[in-house]
């Protein structure tokens, strides 16, 4: 991932005119986003603004009504993501976590992370049954990498525990580790700090920064504004499915449209 100046300037993900209709309701209206490599981008907005819908459209869980999604991993050719099924989008380099934790509760912590390696490994039925040297090597690599990821999020000594037995904060971190196991270019975090205490939030912040330092871009939805302002390089604010503001944290914080969306105002110019 040796980004030259040229590729560093080129956005990793370009979203243009993304629109999503649910029946008569327009959940996303002509949304444009650009995410640069090694950038932490936050997506903010009141409840129901369409943030999670945007995530679902980016990751292929919903099929957008219109628009364009382009992924340009540094040093590689551009890839159109629009209309691809979720597993191909993950394979292309977008990994996500969920707002309400969706781990595999009856699998061990380690197995949860190893499932994330699925799209980077190739063993088929033949490999599963006969276990040729290549498959054994692949399994060992997955195992090694997964254990390293668990160490990184501080769950190394609980690898054999069932995921459902972990405390809440650990489950959130495990979801991030599982997403990282897919070797993504862009990590999408849906409210990672929700329900965390201040100390856990601090640890999370350090983790997100270290992920960025590994060369990944991060797009996060978050309601903890202090965290968002500290972490983000760039912020997009949404309301009613539309982008209402974007820019550096300070600009967005002062932006009148953002203040109006959060605090409300008399309907003078709507």
């Amino acid at each position, binding site marked *: 991932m040796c980004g030259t100046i040229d590729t560093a300037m080129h956005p990793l993900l370009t979203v243009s005119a993304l629109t999503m209709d649910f029946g008569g309701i327009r959940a996303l209206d002509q949304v444009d986003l650009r995410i640069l490599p090694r950038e932490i981008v936050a997506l903010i907005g009141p409840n129901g603004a369409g943030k999670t819908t945007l995530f679902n459209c980016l990751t292929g869980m919903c099929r957008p009504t219109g628009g364009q999604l382009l992924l340009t991993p540094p040093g590689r050719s551009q890839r159109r993501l629009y209309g691809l*099924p*979720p597993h191909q989008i993950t394979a292309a380099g977008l990994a996500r976590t969920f707002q309400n934790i969706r781990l595999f509760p009856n699998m061990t912590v380690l197995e949860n992370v190893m499932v994330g390696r699925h799209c980077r490994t190739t063993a088929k039925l033949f490999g599963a049954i006969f276990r040729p040297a290549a498959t054994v090597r692949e399994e060992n690599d997955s195992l090694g990498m997964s254990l390293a990821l668990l160490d990184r999020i501080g769950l190394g000594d609980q690898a*054999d525990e*069932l995921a459902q037995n972990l405390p809440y904060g650990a489950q959130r971190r495990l979801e991030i580790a599982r997403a990282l196991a897919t070797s993504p270019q862009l990590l999408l975090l849906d409210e990672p700090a929700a329900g965390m205490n201040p100390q856990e939030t601090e640890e999370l912040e350090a983790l997100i920064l270290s992920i960025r330092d590994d060369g990944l871009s991060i797009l996060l939805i978050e309601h903890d504004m202090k965290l968002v302002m500290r972490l983000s390089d760039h912020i997009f604010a949404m309301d009613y499915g539309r982008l209402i503001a974007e820019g550096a944290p300070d600009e967005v914080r002062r932006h009148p449209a953002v203040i109006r969306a959060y605090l409300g105002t008399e309907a003078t110019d709507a």
Partner: protein
Amino acid sequence: MKKKSLTNPTGKDIRHALMVGLWFMFLTFPLLVIKVNPIEQTVTWRWANMLWVGGASAAIALACRLIAARRTEKMEHLSRMPEQTALRHKLPLLFTQDRLRLLGAMVMLLLLAFPLAFSTYQVNIMTTALMYVILGLGLNIVVGFAGLLNLGYVAFYAVGAYTYGLLHLHFNLGFWTALPIGGLMGALFGLLLGFPVLRLRGDYLAIVTLGFGEIIRLVLENWGAFSQGPSGIADIPRPGLFGIGMTLDQSLVYQYYLTIAMALFTVFMVNRLRHSRIGRAWFALREDEIACQAMGIDTTALKLTAFALGAAWSGMTGVLFAAKTTFINPASFTFMESAIILCIVVLGGMGSIIGVAAAALILMLLPEYLRAVAEYRMLVFGAVLVVMMIIRPRGLMQPMRQTHLPAR
């Protein structure tokens, strides 16, 4: 502490046990007490039976309550010790890995020596039971691993059996040629069922698979020109061994060992699959389909593989079945069979290989050996099922988890 609670049932425990006894006396009254003889037009009242039922069920209820009380006491005791809380979820495990290995070796020896010690009749029963072990393990892939509820599993069994029957009838093919073809045909029909139900889950999937099972049976029953209808196919040869002539008894024993070999092969394959990239993906699919997709797993391919592989085993067992009975007709492939195989998987513990194998043996052998109590055997069978599901609602055994850290 344990002893105290065992020897000292409280008054509440005893009252509860007596109520259970009374309730069972009431429930079994028409069946066990009244005996009507329609020819002599007399009614026999067998009051002794009622006492037996009441006494036995009260005793069992009392024992259950005491055991449960002891267990909660143990759990509370453990949770009071903070450093041991991590051990709590491991407490219900019945067997440790080492003990299990020993048990497995003993069971294996017992199975191998079985024909030497018992009559051909017994060997025959055992062969059938082992075939259900294979069927159970095959369905375990679909239901236990991938979490796709399949109520039409017997359809693939029928496909396998008819593959052999028809191939022999028209092309005079033997058992060993038909075995792989039966497996392939099973897999093909598995895919055929898999495609339309890719989007379905849970109840809806169950209904469609149920329908599929019935369709196969109805086609076999009514398409006389193809399958010879209800009269079935007769004179299917037993499996051969390099053309060596065998007496009927020898042939049955040979088939017994063949079925053991097949069962072992199945255990090996299923175990390898379970602990592989694909096995992990199946479990993930069972746990959370959305998250599974988000992890970059192609759930479509995964579901089809599960359906096809499960069906392949059913198909091969079908060939085995046709060779064993030498006669097949659609009546052997009713929904009842699917239900029993599903029972085996659920009772054994979804996803657990050893549990499913054990459940298959128990469920198939129990009714046979209960013939001693003749008319009540199905009653006892049902009672065992109910009691099992109450005591261990998640099956005989939990699926074994691979561990990577040194034991704490």
